[in-house]
């Protein structure tokens, strides 16, 4: 079958569209399909990001554009550049960022490394969490000697966190 558009190349892309219950079929060669944008492969990143945001269901953008007080960026800037202007944008646009992060990473909560300076309590909390997981592991392996050691480590960390909290 020849491409319906150029009538030269062999059609290798077959597009079936159903719009309002009306079905159309188009047969195109790869070249024409790409040109007509019928090829699913030419996704560009800005559009992809834009589609990951919640737009209002009636098309228009929501309310007046918010601006980051530190760098002056707006969400529109982000949609164009795929980058935020500064780290404060994450605070300014928190409501927009959270769903985006969940879609990108499947989560919006950091579980990894924490800077030692200024985040001692959080760092201890992470450590305790990790140790508890290992404790469970050791118990299920019936390695009670190691489990007891880990339990003591957890207690020490908790006592320390408690003292610092006072």
């Amino acid at each position, binding site marked *: 079958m020849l491409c319906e558009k150029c009538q030269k190349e062999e059609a290798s892309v077959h597009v079936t569209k159903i719009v309002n219950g009306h079905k159309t079929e188009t047969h195109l060669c790869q070249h024409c399909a790409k040109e007509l944008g019928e090829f699913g492969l030419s996704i560009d990143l800005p559009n992809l990001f834009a589609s990951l945001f919640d737009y209002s269901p009636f098309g228009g953008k929501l309310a007046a554009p918010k601006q980051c007080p530190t760098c002056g960026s707006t969400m529109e800037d982000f949609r164009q550049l*795929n980058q*935020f202007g500064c*780290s404060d944008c994450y605070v300014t646009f928190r409501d927009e960022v959270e769903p985006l*992060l969940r879609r990108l*990473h499947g989560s919006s*909560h950091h579980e990894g490394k924490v*800077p030692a*300076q200024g985040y001692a309590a959080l760092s201890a909390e992470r450590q305790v969490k990790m140790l508890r997981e290992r404790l469970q592991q050791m118990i299920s392996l019936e390695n009670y000697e190691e489990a007891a050691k880990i339990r003591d480590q957890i207690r020490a960390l908790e006592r320390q966190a408690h003292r610092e909290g006072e």
Partner: protein
Amino acid sequence: MSKSWTKEEGPQGDICLGTRIRLARNLAKVPFPATANREQAKQVLKKGKELVESLNHLASVKYYELAEVDELERQVLMEKHLISPEHTKKTSNKGLILSENEDISIMVNEEDHFRIQVFLPGLQLKAAWELANRVDNLIEANVDYAFDPDIGYLTACPTNVGTGMRGSVMLHLPALARINQLENVLRSVSQFGLAVRGLYGEGSESYGSIYQISNQISLGHSETEMLEHLSRVAHQVISSERQARQYLQEQNRDENEDQIHRAYGLLTHARIISSREAMDLLSTVMLGIDLGILRDLDRGLVKKLMVEIRAAHLQKMMGQSLPAQERDRLRASLIRDRLSRQI
């Protein structure tokens, strides 16, 4: 990759050519590089330069301002993966901290203020993470990082938020390619939430059956969990490649040996060769060495050639820029020279 990458083999080194860990970090209260004004960018550079002293406790490092590094040298750094393509193009207010044996590189004012990279030969995700973590700790003692208790390290692009970490392994998969199983394997890798790329990162095609596999997400799991996941999948791919190699030897021996000897023949006799063709042939020759078919060749030399034949490396060797046709001649003669000295 780095010097250590080409010099040593490392664990699983017959298939895993190298491991890289990258951490994206930014300074609190300073706009990201794309938005920062000149003053702010200079302030970040100055911070970067000051880091050298404390980093020297860990490894012997030097600071470079990219505007002062000539273009060819920048290209060479890029071909070794020590800096990104972006970092070679616009050079104003961009910096680089590089360790002497090239296992640590820190790009200053790339997409983020600091991009810490660690390179190790073979499959060594855990060791690479430990080294990157130590570098990060040393930097952190001197600067205030942009960090949010809920969403972690803050980066210019939200795809890197959280740990700011990307771990990648570079795998040589010629046997899977030969038995047409590569696509299957790589497709299943991507179903595990990992990304597959060619040799030079984002969007680059593969040369010489070399692929990078890396974690796609950076948030929601600890660094160790993400790297364990990556490591498990890498081990799976490596074991598929081993099976494919065995299959080639058992089921397809004559044809396989023919192709390997032909590749060697072309490399030792060609007068004009593109980097693409050379990479593909060197990959085949390396497979021949790994399978014990080409016995007298030094594997390290072939691995080193895979880097040396790249455009900027060749031009640096000649001390001048050369048109593509000249490079193709020079490349062919370099390969002939290196391989013939072997016998």
